[in-house]
């Protein structure tokens, strides 16, 4: 929640800083002045957007998973490991067991 909020704020701040830069440069061009350095508040805004974005991305990350094989194997079952789906036999009693008793499809 907070992570997404930070990310949104950071994106908005960055877009705002970019637009301010564009306006500033077009103002300079209109006035005929040479291009100097960016005004300091736009720089601060961009750095703030960077920090907020970092925080937001870190908080927004999905929950961490274990890296050991043992922890992954704890989640598996014998049926999954032994299924051999390439050789599985599809002619089974499923057709009779799971068919609708009245024979209509759906």
């Amino acid at each position, binding site marked *: 929640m907070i992570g997404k909020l930070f990310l949104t704020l950071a994106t908005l701040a960055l877009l705002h800083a970019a637009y301010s830069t564009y306006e500033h440069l077009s103002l300079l061009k209109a006035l005929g002045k040479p291009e100097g350095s960016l005004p300091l508040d736009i720089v601060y805004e961009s750095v703030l957007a960077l920090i907020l974005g970092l925080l937001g991305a870190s908080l927004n990350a999905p929950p961490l998973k274990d890296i*050991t*094989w*043992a922890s992954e*194997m*704890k989640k*598996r*079952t*014998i*049926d*999954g*490991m*032994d*299924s*051999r*789906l*390439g*050789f*599985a*036999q*599809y*002619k*089974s009693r*499923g*057709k*009779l*067991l*799971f*068919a609708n008793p009245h024979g209509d*499809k*759906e």
Partner: protein
Amino acid sequence: MSLQSALEQLAAHRIKNTRASQDVFRNGLLVLQKKGLKKLGDDGKSFHYTCQNVTHKLLRLPAGWTFLEQLTLASIDVGRLDIADQCLQLIADKFPNSPRVDCLTGIRIEATESPETALKYYAEILEADSANAGIWKRRISVLRRTGKVEKAVNELVQFLDTFYTDVEGWLELADIYASCNQYEHSLQALTHVLLLTPQNPFYMLQAAETAYTAEDFPLAIKMFLTVVDMTDGDDSEQLLQESTPLGITVRAWFGVKLCARRIAQNTNMKSPSNTSLPKKVELLDELATERLRVAYSSSGQKGEIAKGRQEVFAWVAAPLA
């Protein structure tokens, strides 16, 4: 049950390779219907038409095609060949010359036609491309199903000579040998599986149990202890507390106890694989007893007692020799 949870369950089945056809069919049908209802509107269109609409929307998802394949196989398993045909038609339209689609078509033929028809279909494809692994596997499966086990084994051995790294194939070979009670050959096939997947405790457990059935008790006890090591080994922060064995670790401890009993009954047994006997069988037996008692005394949910606890306690309390 929502669309999201259905899709998650389907993805989980794909990752874990389980063959839960009823569950997949139920979830898959829900996915089809939910997506179809969005397009359905007020006039009641037929199910066939909704399926068409659905899949057009669905197939923009990257997992859309694997989902259709999964649903096809599950429908064939459950017996709903109408849905299987629809999904298969969509996949075949999109991917006309694909070997995977050939496999699916072959499975569809296997489900209704006679085995000879299926074998003829596979023979045609294998003539055109003799290294088509999927089709070769299906052929071996049909041979096994119709009882031509020796032919199936020969073909499977040839297949494994060509595709050595196919773990499924080695497992199938081990299963065929075990079903014919040739446990030493089964164990040999399983050693290849262990070479290919050394980190997998399930295959080590299968090998241990096969070794036990083949009466190679020193090898079996070593393998059971390796399984315990693999599954329970790295609880470094729980050294001071009791850690309860769970899952296949319990099965492995049962195996250790069984092997320890057999070894104690016959202290100078020869192992067919020349494995050395463990030096302190009594201590291993005590350890296995204690671990099984812990496994069956830990209270589960709501403090209820583990099922079968009395029987297990009585069995482990029996003397060794």
